[in-house]
């Protein structure tokens, strides 16, 4: 179950997960590495400090739900779940290989702890909202967290769900936007008018806040403090795409680039794991 872990331990866990993502991308030749690196600290805060989960009971109806709506960052979810004990770390070595349970983007029921098959953007929030409403109907107390990308906020369904949720006592629903300021082909603030993201969610009736998306303690506080007035919560997490590896940070080429062996080695050194 949850319980805040010492910050130093989590900082090391986050570095180890980051290196794992680099190796998974290298071994499988898969893109979206920078998108995965961007949200590692959010996942660490959620899975080590916030979520009420028992890795040995992944189907417990009272578990908190965490939906990775930005399915292209699947490596970050897989590595987190493995490190948290939902399945053996050896599964990560099979990532994206023919016959593996862990595909480039999560399939339904592919591994313990994976709540939803994602990959097409804009699906996680409506489904997560449905789960939060189900909890209300069933009189359960669990919470639902949905992690989205900023590019994902282009999708109309995000705003349909955003309009619907605040009227329905959905204070146990929390959206976290991984606001790394890039989408696949450009600056997210330029492709669509995304600036003032917290104000947009506020205007839709949400309890919105802005945090440093790489500060595990701040993320933990934001995720733990739910509204007391029935409003759902939107956490705009300011992040850096490719975070943790200097030559990937804020360089959108790493949306699609795959690291070579030298780059893997350089990343290991930068992450202080060598």
């Amino acid at each position, binding site marked *: 179950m949850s319980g805040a872990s010492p910050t130093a331990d989590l900082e090391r866990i986050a570095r180890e997960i980051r290196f794992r993502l680099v190796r998974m991308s290298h071994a499988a030749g898969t893109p979206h590495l920078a998108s995965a690196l961007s949200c590692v600290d959010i996942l660490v805060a959620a899975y080590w400090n916030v979520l009420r989960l028992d890795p040995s009971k992944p189907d417990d109806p009272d578990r908190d739900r965490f939906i990775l709506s930005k399915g292209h960052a699947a490596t970050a979810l897989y590595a987190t779940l493995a490190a948290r004990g939902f399945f053996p770390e050896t599964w990560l070595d099979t990532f994206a290989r023919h016959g593996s349970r862990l595909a480039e983007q999560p399939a339904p029921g592919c591994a313990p702890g994976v709540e939803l098959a994602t990959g097409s953007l804009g699906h996680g929030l409506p489904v997560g909202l449905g789960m939060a409403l189900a909890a209300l*109907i069933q009189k359960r107390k669990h919470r639902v967290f949905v992690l989205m990308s900023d590019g994902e906020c282009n999708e109309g369904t995000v705003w349909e769900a955003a309009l619907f949720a605040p009227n329905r006592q959905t204070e146990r629903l929390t959206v976290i936007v991984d606001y790394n300021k890039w989408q696949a082909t450009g600056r997210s603030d330029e492709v669509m008018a995304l600036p003032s993201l917290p104000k947009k969610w506020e205007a839709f009736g949400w309890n919105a806040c802005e945090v440093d998306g790489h500060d595990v303690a701040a993320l933990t506080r934001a995720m733990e403090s739910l509204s007391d007035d029935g409003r759902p919560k939107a956490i705009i997490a300011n992040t850096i795409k490719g975070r943790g590896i200097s030559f990937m940070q804020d360089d959108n080429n790493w949306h699609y680039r795959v690291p070579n062996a030298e780059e893997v080695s350089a990343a290991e050194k930068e992450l202080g794991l060598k």
Partner: protein
Amino acid sequence: MRNAFAREITRLAKGDERIVLLAADIGNKLFDDFKLKCPGRFFNCGVAEANMIGMAAGMALSGLRPVCYTIAPFITYRCLEQIRVDVCYHHVPVVLVGTGSGLAYASLGATHHSCEEMGMLRLLPHLAVVAPGDSFEVTAATRAAVGHADPVYIRIGKKDEPVVHASEPPFAIGKAIRVRGGRDVCFLSNGAMLPVVIAAADLLVKEGLSPEIHSFHTVKPLDETTLHDLFPRHRIVATVEEHGIAGGLGGSVAEWLADHPFPNAALLRFGTSGDFWHETGEQEHAREHFGLTAPAIAARVKSALASVP
């Protein structure tokens, strides 16, 4: 038909707390009784159909039995990807009810017609596609769908359609209902065309012919047992639907025939042409335009019978 659905879903939900009804800003007063008897389990989702389907999938993943309801084109075309990914890919038992289907809302223009949606939906894995023939069948289909392990799309008309059956017939998804036995031609009627097909058959009886009629409500899964039985016994099998002749019942039977040829039987498909209906008018005018009236159907069958051996 919509009243039959509202009555039955209310009755079922009273006895099953897993049933949740979601509607997209439609059905004013239609669900008042549901709201009264099942408080907290009705959601007016607003004019936001894609979100409605996603929410329903989330509810189904949590063990509930959500039923979504709105006008047929909006619950299908508008949110096809949500149906495909959230519902079908996750293989959850969500029931989708499309009201005013086919040409029922002819006067509102082609934005409100649905003459392609069964073809689109039947291609999606796991999803059953059902178009009941009258309000008794709607009641039975609603109950069958809520008890079905897979997701189901039910396509219904609006209100005051003629009732065909004297009481609720035995009903199963994927099993056609024989309405009348006969020899020369076999009608497979889909959805609200059933009373028109019966009227067409009555005209042929006056000509001394013996038509058979099935309410072939389920387009997917296709009732192959019934098809195997009836094709050898008839010179002509005629599918009739308020839907394009491609993709729906006629299209499904034509595909099936390609794998199971019956050289002595011809398939005649009645449906819309594949174009929008651009005129102004009511359902009867739209049906007339597409040859979906009893006299037009009877005349085409008669002439086809004259030309087959």
